[in-house]
């Protein structure tokens, strides 16, 4: 059986956020978006470590943008999801839907 590249919970959050942000996905908006949508306190270091791991797996790619004075002359690193990344997000979604179905305890609202 071939070894599958599964996405962890936080990896999935980051992937979905990068897809949602499109061309403007770099460290600051990614962290803010995750914080706003999940209510979690997100550390930038954790987001970058996750993005680095996803990049190694080939699910995202990155390029450096322009440096600005408010960033101390440091460039922004923009992230984009690759074709393989989109595929793995869809597969993860199907897996989760498959697990979700047929669980009466989880049907019928937020309880």
């Amino acid at each position, binding site marked *: 059986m071939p070894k599958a590249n599964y996405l962890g919970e936080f990896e999935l959050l980051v992937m979905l956020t990068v897809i949602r942000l499109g061309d403007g996905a*770099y*460290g*600051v908006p990614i*962290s803010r978006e995750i914080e706003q949508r999940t209510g979690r306190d997100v*550390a*930038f*270091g*954790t987001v*970058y*470590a996750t993005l*680095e*791991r996803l990049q190694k797996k080939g699910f995202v790619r990155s390029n*450096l943008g322009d*440096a*600005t004075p*408010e*960033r*101390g*002359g*440091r*460039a*922004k*690193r923009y992230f984009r999801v690759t074709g393989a990344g989109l595929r793995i997000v869809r597969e993860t979604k199907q897996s989760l839907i498959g697990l979700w179905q047929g669980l009466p305890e989880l049907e019928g609202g937020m309880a």
Partner: protein
Amino acid sequence: MRRSHAAANWLLERLGLDVALAGDLLEECARGRSTFWYWRQMLIAVLTGIWGAIRDHKLLALRAIATGFAIEFLLIFLWQLTPDAPLLSVEFWLVGMPTTLLAHAATGWIVARTHRAHPVPMVSAFLVCLLLWYVSRTFSAARTILAVSLNQPEARPYLAAYLATIFVTTIGLLGGGILAARPKEPASTPKPELTGIWAAIGEHKLLALRAIAAGFAVNFLFILLWNTFHLDMLLNHAIGWLADLLSQAVTGWAVARTRRAQPIPTVLAFVVCLLLWNLYLDFSTVNMLLVDSIDQPRFRPYLASHLARYLVAIIGILAGGILGARPKGRPSALKIDGEVA
């Protein structure tokens, strides 16, 4: 605030973390985030980066731990050769602690330089193992000191000494490791000459080791000559100083001439090793003169004279080395199209 940001950026670069992360944190600070938030993020980034590198390179981490312990056991062996400083004595705090700091900084430096792909994470892996080993060895004694310190204030200095040793070891190892780690993105500014010398020694380690061996061989030959002809009695005369200077200059010249590819870096490597060796041999005298000179001014000329001999040795070897080194761009005979010009 800006200075602390610069220090944090320097640390991130040395750790090999993404420099864009430093920019993101600065951008958030410009939007009103607190200094506490900044340093908390920085700490999480550093710890996440270190842990990630160790997890992804387990074999490299094991090698770093083995290297670190090999150096540590060598240091313990050398330490046992020196006279014991009583615990909590002036020597313990003034000499023992700085020596521990320097020795561990050197260990951290070596571990980092021999694991250049992930220097700081590898030094951190060794640090954790070293502390676990140290605490496990001293656990019962530490527990006793802690228990006694709660009731008897006179035992608290012993607890302080125990904790200070752990603290100094940690600072030394991490400091050495961070200093040895190079930023992954090369700086656009030209490197100063000193960096070039260290880089040359780093790239030609075997050559440097051979130069050190050659230098010590020449040095021991001079010591043999001095002892054979009983020239020790001249040591307190001007002619003795001159002879010392000349003999060291000859040593430096010989090292430079026999290591023509990198004369100055290898001579410098020898100077550092010779000084460390002499300090090791001379430790008790220098220590005694230093302690006596603090409150008794009449000892200061002796201390100055003693230290001047080190200075003479440095000047002599460096002068000899510089004289022995030839400019690289000037060959002895210029060949043009096969003809000697």
